[in-house]
């Protein structure tokens, strides 16, 4: 069995930041990711970042991911295991990891879970047909591999991700038939929405998808207008011709490891689903087990990096590592996080966090 000071599962922005901050204080770290690359969701994000003014907004996600990943790879205190899947974390504190068909047992003194989130789906007839994709799936296909998912897309959901992926589809030469949104208003920042509208893509608010059409594969969809109680209004159904239906209806935290480790969990819709209780240090109800990033509640990449930094600092500090600037560094991260979550934009997150604080 491998002994290590800190094990981190997930090499997205949260896990990378955690590894860098913990190692900076002197801790020995193992970073585990099931992909064959580091960077998590960020590697497909080619747009200039939305969100936070202070935290690298207007840089491209992919550049941030590469920079952090290179820094981690060059760090002697961080051992990186890729194509390695964390399978479980047991009462005796042992973490099981599968890599290349072999199981390995690791016993970390501190454990940071940064497994990110998974895209949600929607219930409607034929939602399992080939041609129905998560927005992130389409983004990966188009931006990472340069391959089109089809010819004409119906985007469901006009939040930031739905609108940005629509724009990226247009850049890739794929037609976007329409963006539909159940709410009366779009969720995306207007700068992004304006770009797709200018390109001629209609955004229908207060609309939903009733079903996908097609035998074997998606050939179209039926959409309808919603009333104020989110019920389809009879007579407003209309057919949209599309061979791709892209669902951009939010993410949900990937919490299997946390459930299995026995963390106290609670359902918080504002944070995307079931999330762990945690204290201000980001430690869960299981002593020594920390969380960071989307797994602790769906936010965005800057918050994930900040949380990663915080979990990394706290895990290392709890092992006795310190520095002259420890208190100031920690406070700085906390202040930045509070900044990110301030104002009307952060209201939902603040409401969510209030429900899962230890």
């Amino acid at each position: 069995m491998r002994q290590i000071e800190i094990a981190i599962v997930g090499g997205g922005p949260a896990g990378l930041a955690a590894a860098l901050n913990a190692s900076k204080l002197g801790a020995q770290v193992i970073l585990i990711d099931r992909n064959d690359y580091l960077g998590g969701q960020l590697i497909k994000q080619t747009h200039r970042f939305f969100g936070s003014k202070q935290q690298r907004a207007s840089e491209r996600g992919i550049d941030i991911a590469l920079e952090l990943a290179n820094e981690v790879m060059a760090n002697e205190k961080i051992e990186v295991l890729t194509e390695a899947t964390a399978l479980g974390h047991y009462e005796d504190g042992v973490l099981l990891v599968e890599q290349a068909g072999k199981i390995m047992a690791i016993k970390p003194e501190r454990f940071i879970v940064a497994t990110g989130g998974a895209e949600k789906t929607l219930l409607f007839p034929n939602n399992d047909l080939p041609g129905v994709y998560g927005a992130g799936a389409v983004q990966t296909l188009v931006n990472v591999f340069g391959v089109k998912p089809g010819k004409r897309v119906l985007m469901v959901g006009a939040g930031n991700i739905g609108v940005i992926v629509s724009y990226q589809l247009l850049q890739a030469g794929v037609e976007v038939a329409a963006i539909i949104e159940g709410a009366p208003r779009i969720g995306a920042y207007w700068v992004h929405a304006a770009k797709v509208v200018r390109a001629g893509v209609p955004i229908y608010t207060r609309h939903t998808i009733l079903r996908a059409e097609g035998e074997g594969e998606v050939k179209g969809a039926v959409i309808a207008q919603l009333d104020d109680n989110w019920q389809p209004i009879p007579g407003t159904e209309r057919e949209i011709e599309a061979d791709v239906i892209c669902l951009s209806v939010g993410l949900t935290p990937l919490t299997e490891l946390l459930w299995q480790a026995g963390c106290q969990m609670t359902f918080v819709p504002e944070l995307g689903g079931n999330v762990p209780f945690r204290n201000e240090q980001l430690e869960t109800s299981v002593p020594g087990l920390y969380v960071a990033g989307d797994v602790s509640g769906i936010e965005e990449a800057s918050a994930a990096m900040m949380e990663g930094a915080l979990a990394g600092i706290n895990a290392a500090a709890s092992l006795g590592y310190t520095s002259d600037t420890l208190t100031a560094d920690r406070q700085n991260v906390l202040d930045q996080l509070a900044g990110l979550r301030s104002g009307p934009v952060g209201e939902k997150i603040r409401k969510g966090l209030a429900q899962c604080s230890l």
Partner: protein
Amino acid sequence: MRIKKHPILEFKTGKIVKFTFDGRELEGHEGETIAAALHAAGIRTMRESGHLHRPRGLFCNIGNCSSCLMVVNGEPNVRVCVERLREGMNVETQKGKGELK
């Protein structure tokens, strides 16, 4: 369908390799995922579900949902959205749970 021209991205593609899909010979780029190579060839159906025999394709594209399981070189339940394409791979539509031969 591959993207020919892109305003901000350049795609680094590996060398061209041959593989088979249900016995049909296809080409793809080494190092891209099997799912990407199939999509480039216009193939979006990857398996048949166990109970209702419904077609299934890609959903998450990050190895999380198991919608894309196929038989690769005789081994069933391979998530082709994260499995990299290599020369000579034998890729087949999976029916139901698949069998270990």
